[in-house]
């Protein structure tokens, strides 16, 4: 069969690959989307089962996914097995790389918290001197956020806080329970805002590329989707230096194939994108490809009990519902010990037996008494994308398809330690002021990668010496190559990155469509 040149080749079908496919095909441009994993058949591949019917009673096979702390025996088959695609890290610098390889990427599994970044993030260097500003501001991205929020049906309240920009929300009108109101009141006295959560409702129980983006592209008749296609190299034209296609390997047979393309969009997920660019030996004239890796710390927090909800009195009026404390540190004042800030997820109602230093009948009695009175806070803290936090290729260790793997060298420091301590002490004080019984305080946080919010390593900057892509997600080195995932983020912020990834992918795709129309790319 004669080799055909596709208009736009999209590598990856998660949130940003799906968004690029939707926008471009709706503008009349043909796209071919490759995904390294299989197509999902949700009905066939997933079923409700009790743990008692699983071979390991819910524990999963020992040692199977040591770095995927989110995994259980129920979900183990959905994650990438690190024996198939290994990675490593220097001794003492654990990194939990959590990956999915199926059409739709990680998009079916995200937490759905839906936030905009504010200019405290976009103009972070102006604010505190660390890192680099983004080449865009909230004003540039706001119209795209609005459209993304509409597609994803983000439910939320207007809070009128500059660090927590409002958006195009489905109104959240559930009244607060008395416990949550008391916690919010306690926060107000301490200068800590407690808002309602914001999250994507999606459609039909899902808010993923799989159901909200890709079907729209399919409906245009201009999308070709190829699963099980593992791109091992982006190829370039020797004369022009432009990207001219890819070489990919069929996952099943290991058959190697080439594909030619006019435009290449890389949307493989932060570290897979950077790995592919490194293997392809492109997009690194700045020397910054692979650097400034950042994410958010999770895991620190408190567990408490709301006294009036005990002994079966925890009605919805008394307790229940969640909340969010958006960043409040280092905005107009300076907090000693750490830069940037954290947000806090707040939830109420559920209880966990691990909170109690009891066992046997005494524990059972506690659970009966305290049942339904639980209250927790959990940190989402911005980590700093130091230059030293980086990834590099490990050619000595290859994956199941012969591709070099990644060495991930990153670690947290005093900034994260002090941030977590401040969060635990502050929310414990708020809970006590609200009359709750604090049962556990945990200052420890999870290793880098755990939040599945890896960002950076191909950051955005209009100066080609300081970044890999420009403000349109376009490679400085290769004008017909765009990167749409979170690898382009110059800083992490405290926010779940999904809304920003989607808005940037939408904006970049519209720019690309215009440039194609003008004949500029």
């Amino acid at each position, binding site marked *: 069969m004669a080799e055909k040149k596709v208009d736009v080749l999209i590598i990856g079908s998660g949130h940003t690959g799906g968004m690029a496919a939707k926008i471009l095909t709706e503008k009349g441009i043909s796209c071919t989307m490759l995904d390294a994993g*299989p*197509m*999902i058949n949700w009905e*066939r*591949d*997933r*079923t*409700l*089962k*009790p*743990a*008692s*019917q*699983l071979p*390991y*009673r*819910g*524990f999963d*096979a*020992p*040692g199977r996914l040591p770095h995927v*702390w989110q995994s*259980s*025996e*129920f*979900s*183990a*088959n*959905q994650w990438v*097995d690190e*024996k*198939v695609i290994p990675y490593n890290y220097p001794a003492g610098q654990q990194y939990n790389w959590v990956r999915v*390889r*199926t059409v739709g990427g990680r998009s079916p599994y995200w937490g759905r918290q839906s936030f905009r970044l504010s200019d405290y993030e976009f103009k972070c260097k102006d604010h505190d001197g660390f890192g680099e500003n983004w080449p865009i501001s909230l004003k540039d991205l706001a119209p795209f956020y609005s459209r993304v929020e509409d597609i994803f049906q983000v439910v939320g309240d207007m809070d009128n806080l500059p660090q927590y920009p409002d958006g195009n929300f489905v109104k959240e009108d559930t009244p607060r329970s008395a416990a949550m109101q008391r916690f919010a009141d306690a926060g107000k006295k301490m200068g800590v805002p407690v808002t309602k959560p914001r999250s994507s409702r999606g459609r039909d129980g899902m808010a993923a590329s799989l159901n909200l983006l890709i079907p729209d592209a399919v409906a245009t008749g201009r999308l070709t989707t190829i699963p099980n296609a593992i791109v091992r190299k982006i190829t370039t034209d020797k004369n022009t230096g432009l990207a001219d296609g890819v070489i990919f390997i069929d*996952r099943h047979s*290991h*058959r190697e194939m080439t594909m030619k393309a006019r435009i290449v969009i890389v949307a493989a997920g932060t570290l897979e994108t950077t790995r592919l660019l490194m293997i392809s030996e492109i997009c690194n004239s700045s020397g910054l490809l692979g650097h400034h890796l950042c994410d958010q710390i999770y*895991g620190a*927090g*408190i*567990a408490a009990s709301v006294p009036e909800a005990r002994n079966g009195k925890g009605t919805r009026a008394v307790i229940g519902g969640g909340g969010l404390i958006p960043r409040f540190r280092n905005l107009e004042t300076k907090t000693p010990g750490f830069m940037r800030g954290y947000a806090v997820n707040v939830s109420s109602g559920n209880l*966990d*037996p*691990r*909170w*109690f*230093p*009891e*066992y*046997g*009948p005494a*524990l*059972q009695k506690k659970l009966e008494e305290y049942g339904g009175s639980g209250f927790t806070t959990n940190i989402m803290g911005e980590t700093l994308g130091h230059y030293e936090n980086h990834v590099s290729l490990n050619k000595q260790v290859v994956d*199941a398809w*012969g591709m070099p793997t990644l060495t991930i060298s990153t670690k947290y420091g005093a900034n994260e330690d002090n941030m977590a301590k401040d969060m635990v002490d502050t929310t414990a004080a708020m809970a006590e002021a609200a009359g709750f019984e604090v*049962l*556990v305080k*945990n200052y*420890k946080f*999870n290793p880098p990668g755990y939040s599945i919010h890896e960002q950076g390593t191909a950051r955005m900057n209009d100066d080609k010496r300081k970044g890999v892509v420009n403000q349109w997600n376009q490679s400085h080195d290769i004008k017909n190559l765009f990167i749409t995932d979170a690898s382009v983020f110059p800083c992490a912020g405290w926010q779940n990155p999904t809304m920003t990834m989607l808005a940037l992918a939408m904006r970049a795709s519209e720019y690309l469509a215009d440039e194609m129309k003008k004949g500029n790319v």
Partner: protein
Amino acid sequence: MKRRDFVKGLAVTTAAAGTALAHASKTSASTETLDQAAAATQATAQTDARAQRARQMASFHTPNIPVSQPDVVAVTEQRYFTAARWATLVRFSDLVMPAGDGYPSATQAGAPEFLDFLIGASPADRQQMYNTGLDRLEADCHKKSGVSFAKSSAQQADGAIRPYLKGWINDHPPTEPHEHFIAMIHRDVRQATMNSPAWATAAEVAGERTPGVGLYVSPIDPGMGTWVNHGATRAASTTAPAAAKPAHS
């Protein structure tokens, strides 16, 4: 789809007819009188039958045959822990999860046997944590009460357990080694008990909701692990790199 089936059927027909003719040509002189047209017709009929059978099997619906967990009729063979550690584990299990309200105790649910299997199959650091921890429980009980943990009263056992019980949240059990062990074994015994078939049966008898139900993901097309396990090979190049060719060529 119909067209594809037709093409496939055509290919099978051709192959089958070819085989039949080849077979005929190898037989004795009497085959010369064989009506080749009849043979072809017969082969076509066989092919149609095969295609029909394949279609029938493709549309077959699996009958509903209820299946049971092996624990309903069999017990797990205990083989990993030493006798002393096993005795400590059994005693600990029934202290933290005694029977009550129609639900089985940890031992009635086979939790110690399950953990013997699980820990025996676990990475070395987890085995070490369990072995050291069980030994420590035994040593502490002897030191405080002068009896083996396995034969201790509830009060004597409590003296060895309670000082190391700590509340914890998220993925962060206590870091002090023995506190960590107590947190882990406590969690594991509870889970092995409450996720057991015996516990599920008790819930059913009590008319309560089936416990521990979750969304199970099957291996997907055909499972990421397959590629490592079966060692699929990659075709070697015969056109490029000289290194791939014999040195003497």
